[in-house]
């Protein structure tokens, strides 16, 4: 392993080797996370619904998703005649690619951020907005009314929920005094550090709701509401096109929960176990909450969803932000 790295560094140079390494690790993380999450989600669903979930392939059905991936790879990608071909093919890529950049910004442990930038949090929200473009491109280019309706819903929903997401994160930023994710974790650890879940419980609640909506997950999955819009924005996608959208969804779930763990649960902070393990444990705990919400609640209606964001979450997060600022100024 070491000799391989040395050879690589010799031929490519240190910068390119790091880039390559980071890329391979992130790609691995994305794939493994998606495969684990699909299995995990089906198992939790089974548990909630009083059944077993996947059991056939591997112990407790752990190989099920691997086989699903192989099946999806083998599927024919049908591109309907009436679609806008270029945009249609580009859409899944646009939806998925920001995920790579986003994963590299997460602080997995104190000194384990692949791209350590000062305004990491800002970058995360900026890149997160790009994936919406992919969804809308897919919906628009499909030339399908169900897809278009889904795309319209996705855009208005994401714009509405971006605000409470940002505002609740800003309250944490005020407490930590930095936009750098590593610094935010550092502010929660150490001798007098306190996890922001205790200082900002309201912000955490708003963040979780907005993050669920931002990733188009149930009960906010109206862009792909299968009982209304067939499959919403990805109605016309088959095979790998669909799989990439799917992969993007699970990766974004990981990212919003990763940011949540960083902002509110102290990132890699915890006793005994090493930092990255704690980080992943916290992320998957938040993911578990999202999965449970999906299998418990009915779906909101479009206007109710908008009302929740504009009339409740945004004012609440503004009040929370102002209160945080006022208290910080006075204390």
């Amino acid at each position, binding site marked *: 392993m070491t000799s391989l790295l040395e050879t690589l560094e010799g031929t490519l140079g240190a910068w390119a080797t790091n880039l390559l390494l980071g890329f391979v690790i992130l790609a691995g993380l994305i794939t493994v996370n998606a495969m684990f999450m699909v299995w995990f989600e089906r198992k939790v669903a089974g548990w909630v619904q009083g059944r077993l979930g996947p059991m056939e392939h591997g112990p407790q059905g752990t190989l099920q998703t691997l086989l699903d991936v192989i099946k999806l790879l083998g599927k024919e990608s049908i591109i309907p005649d009436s679609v806008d071909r270029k945009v249609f093919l580009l859409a899944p890529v646009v939806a998925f690619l920001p995920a790579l950049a986003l994963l590299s910004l997460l602080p997995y442990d104190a000194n384990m951020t692949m791209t350590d930038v000062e305004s990491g949090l800002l970058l995360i929200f900026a890149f997160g907005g790009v994936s919406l473009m992919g969804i809308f491109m897919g919906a628009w280019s499909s030339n399908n009314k169900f897809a278009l309706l889904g795309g319209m819903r996705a855009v208005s929903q994401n714009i509405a929920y971006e605000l409470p997401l940002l505002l609740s994160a800003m309250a944490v930023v005020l407490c930590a005094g930095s936009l750098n994710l590593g610094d935010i974790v550092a502010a929660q650890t150490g001798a007098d550090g306190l996890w922001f879940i205790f200082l900002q419980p309201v912000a955490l609640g708003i963040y979780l709701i907005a993050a669920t909506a931002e990733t188009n997950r149930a009960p906010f999955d109206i862009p792909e509401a299968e009982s209304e819009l067939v499959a919403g924005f990805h109605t016309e996608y088959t095979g790998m096109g669909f799989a990439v959208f799917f992969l993007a969804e699970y990766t974004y779930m990981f990212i919003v929960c990763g940011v949540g763990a960083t902002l509110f649960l102290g990132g890699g902070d915890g006793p005994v176990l090493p930092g990255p393990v704690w980080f992943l444990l916290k992320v998957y705990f938040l993911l578990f909450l999202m999965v449970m919400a999906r299998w418990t609640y*009915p779906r909101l209606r479009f206007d109710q969803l908008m009302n929740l964001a504009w009339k409740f979450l945004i004012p609440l997060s503004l009040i929370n932000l102002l209160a945080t600022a006022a208290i910080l100024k006075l204390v």
Partner: protein
Amino acid sequence: MSVESTTLKAYAEHPRTPEYGALRFGTLTPALEKAPEDGTYFLNMGPQHPSMHGVLRLLLRLDGEMVVHCEPVIGYSHRAHEKMAERGIFAQFLPNPSRMDYLGGMIYNVGYCQAVERAFSIEVPERARVLRTLCCELNRISSHLLWFGTFLLDLGAFTPFLLAFQDREKILDILDSASGSRLTYCYASFGGLTLDIPDDFAARTRQYIKEQREAFHTYHELVTGNVIFQQRCEGVGVFSKDTVLSYGMTGPNARASGIAYDVRKAEPYGFYPELDFEVPTREEGDCLARYFVRFEEMEQSLRMVEQCLDRLPDGPVGPKKPLVRVKPKPGEYYHCVESPRGQFGMFIVADKNPEPWRIKARTPSFSNLSAMAEMLEGTMVADTIAILGSIDIVMPEIDR
């Protein structure tokens, strides 16, 4: 010459020919054909759509998310049941009614038998009368459970669907042990039942009743108190009393709008006159009212099943030799029963032949669906699905 040209002309003018755009939309009325200049657009929902309950097709004109105009198209599962009845003797139609409404199969099967028995004065032993009522009520619960599951599925909640199916499974097993089939029953025959119940039937049913009451508690905790669920249902799809009466809606949908009409009380049949039960009604007429009415009905049905079990007499369940050839008396006869969706009527016209001259089924979902189209105007797409789910239609029963 003249006949031929008239026929051809009729064919050319028939709205199903391509000249009328039938290949794209079927028959379009002016409200749907409107030019898209007013910003509205046409959306074809179904017959292949995840929540069209089989093969319903809705032609919608939408303004953004709002429904401007809606036209249901039916007939995709037409199987000519009524015509089939004319092709054989009365007994040969026995398997058909339960295939019209596959969720209330037992009730349809019993309803047809009772219609024939009432028309031609055939005696039914007491035990068969009680057992038929018992099985019908179990069937009603299973139908309402499936409605509960699919309604919540339409609202986007997946878990209640599976919970409801697990409980429904128990009923199907119980009815399977008695009748030998799980969905499309042919348990009743003229003059009684085809088979007696197995020995452990009563014990299993009592056990099921106990479990079901606990399960209702779980449903209410999971669904009824949920804020999202209540917001999705409250005030959505309100049927006024006038609408209900003018469209001839019956069953839980009518009772949710404050019309306490139940065939079991209004025109008692079978063992119902001797049972103690209530007809739950609500005044609101919205999806939530229909939800509560169906739940209260299930609890009443459980009570009825218990009473039937307590008062089950011994004796034969039918004639010694199966009554295959009934002797018809010429005339017109009508008998109706309360299906899970409303009034199911059998209109029989008999002459002296052993085959029915005509059988007409009055099925409740047809009226309920007709009223829905008017109701959908001005609602959102998501409401369309919720209302459709809440009125509980079964397509083969509409198309027959």
